[in-house]
């Protein structure tokens, strides 16, 4: 560790001479080590998915979730340190309820993202707090604009995406996301695509077993947050696991991706 930040990385209140805040950058490293997290905005809804890594075999299925309901029309998927993410979810829930009680309406997902970004940002300003070690994906249904996906990062920035991926398998998944046609992609087919992407980003020999956790806010779920039906998740996963390994996307490249590849800016970002 000596020499990495050479004294400029002890608090977020110190800039390095190059203008970097190392503590915040370390927080993003915590995110990159998490299980892969994917969000896709489709034509009929938004899908959130998490590759929930299971190190301990005695853990019961469905414990330690990483996707949470925030309001009827908003859900959050957490990449990075789970407890940090849960704190953000708690904050998101109280923001949503507070908005509802004052304005008698559902909070627009854009506004929730903005407020959470401001909240995260505060934790990159003072020596006595550390930044959140999580990136959160906010999927929501906007009353006037339909489905939308926002991402809030540890430095307090927030973006609106068509699709986003982070965590161990991010590089392979981002490459795969770039090939999707978002003008036609439906939630159901996105679920299948996600199952494939996560499967292909993994190194079967090395990686821990995983649980595929998925939720959506779609026309199928009446524009409400809902877990993707278990049968659909299981069948999508089985389908890709039974396919023969494809050399160009899976296999060898995938295992390289899961190393310390620097994050490429290949997210598909929306205008606005």
């Amino acid at each position: 560790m000596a020499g990495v930040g050479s004294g400029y990385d002890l608090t977020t209140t110190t800039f390095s001479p190059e203008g970097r805040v190392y503590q915040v950058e370390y927080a993003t490293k915590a995110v990159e080590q998490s299980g892969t997290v994917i969000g896709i905005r489709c034509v009929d809804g938004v899908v959130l998915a998490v590759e929930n890594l299971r190190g301990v075999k005695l853990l019961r299925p469905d414990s330690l979730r990483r996707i949470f309901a925030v309001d009827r029309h908003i859900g959050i998927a957490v990449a990075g340190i789970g407890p940090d993410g849960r704190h953000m979810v708690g904050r998101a829930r109280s923001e949503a309820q507070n908005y509802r009680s004052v304005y008698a309406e559902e909070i627009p997902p854009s506004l929730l993202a903005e407020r959470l970004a401001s909240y995260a940002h505060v934790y990159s300003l003072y020596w006595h707090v550390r930044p959140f070690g999580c990136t959160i994906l906010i999927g929501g249904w906007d009353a006037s604009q339909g489905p939308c996906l926002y991402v809030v990062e540890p430095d307090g920035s927030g973006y609106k995406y068509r699709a986003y991926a982070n965590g161990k398998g991010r590089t392979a998944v981002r490459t795969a996301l770039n090939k999707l046609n978002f003008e036609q992609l439906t939630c159901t087919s996105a679920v299948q695509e996600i199952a494939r992407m996560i499967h292909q980003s993994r190194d079967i020999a090395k990686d821990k077993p995983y649980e595929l956790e998925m939720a959506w806010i779609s026309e199928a779920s009446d524009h409400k947050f809902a877990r993707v039906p278990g049968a659909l998740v299981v069948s999508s996963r089985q389908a890709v696991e039974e396919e023969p390994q494809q050399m160009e996307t899976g296999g060898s490249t995938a295992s390289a991706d899961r190393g310390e590849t620097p994050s490429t800016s290949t997210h598909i970002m929306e205008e606005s």
Partner: protein
Amino acid sequence: MSRSHEATIPPARGFSSSSGGGLKTSTPASLELLYAAAAASDPFEGIASAMSFTKHLLMHNCDVWTPDWYNPTQDPQLGTTIMAVEYDGGVVLAADSRTSTGTYVANRVSDKITAVAPPYIYCARSGSAADTQMLADTVRRYVTALALETQRPATVRTAAALFRELIYQNKSRLTAGVICAGWDPLNGGQVYSITLGGTLVRQPFSIGGSGSTYIYGYCDASYRKGMNREACIAFCQQAASLAMARDGSSGGVLRMVCIEESGAQRLLFTEDQLPRGWQG
């Protein structure tokens, strides 16, 4: 403190500034007499505000004559007739124009229909003029800030909820009955009524203010579902002019605002343009 209604009223209570005995003395004995006089002349004896005003004049040796209909301790009230009606694609608000201070008409052409988020959300105010002006201003500020934050115009429901919140949280201090109405792309024309206690209800039409008590029956009998803009305007004209004719604290001209997708339009009807009921 012996106040009695039989006490004789000193002759000095009048215009005279040259009074020898009456108001300018401040010896305890004569003060006592003056209290008695004030009590006798005050039809609301025992009402603190009215009494203390008279006391104030006397104790500060003021030689001021005030007519009995003028009492500045009474706040300007919108003793009022207000109403709003939803129609397909819009909404009409109507209000009389009388602001009174007791029985004194402080303003006979006042505007009780106030823009909250022009041109789509307006409110009609009844109760204390000061309270409702402040409320409308506050809600306008909140709604403007929210529109900037969310980058879209606030809905009528949101504006009404803000009125509800402010009135409910401060109900012990406020005298305000508000009808908040307007148009938004989500739900079209909407009328929300916020009562003195802070209840918020959406209604197809709503009436409010002191004048409304005279026309509940008329409105119930003549309101029809699915009226168009012109029918709603005629309904408001008829109902409001009936209330203005019977209610002592409603009157003046009739103001209306029509709100629909194309914007808001103001209408004004002077007394001669209003329907006349039975004048007996």
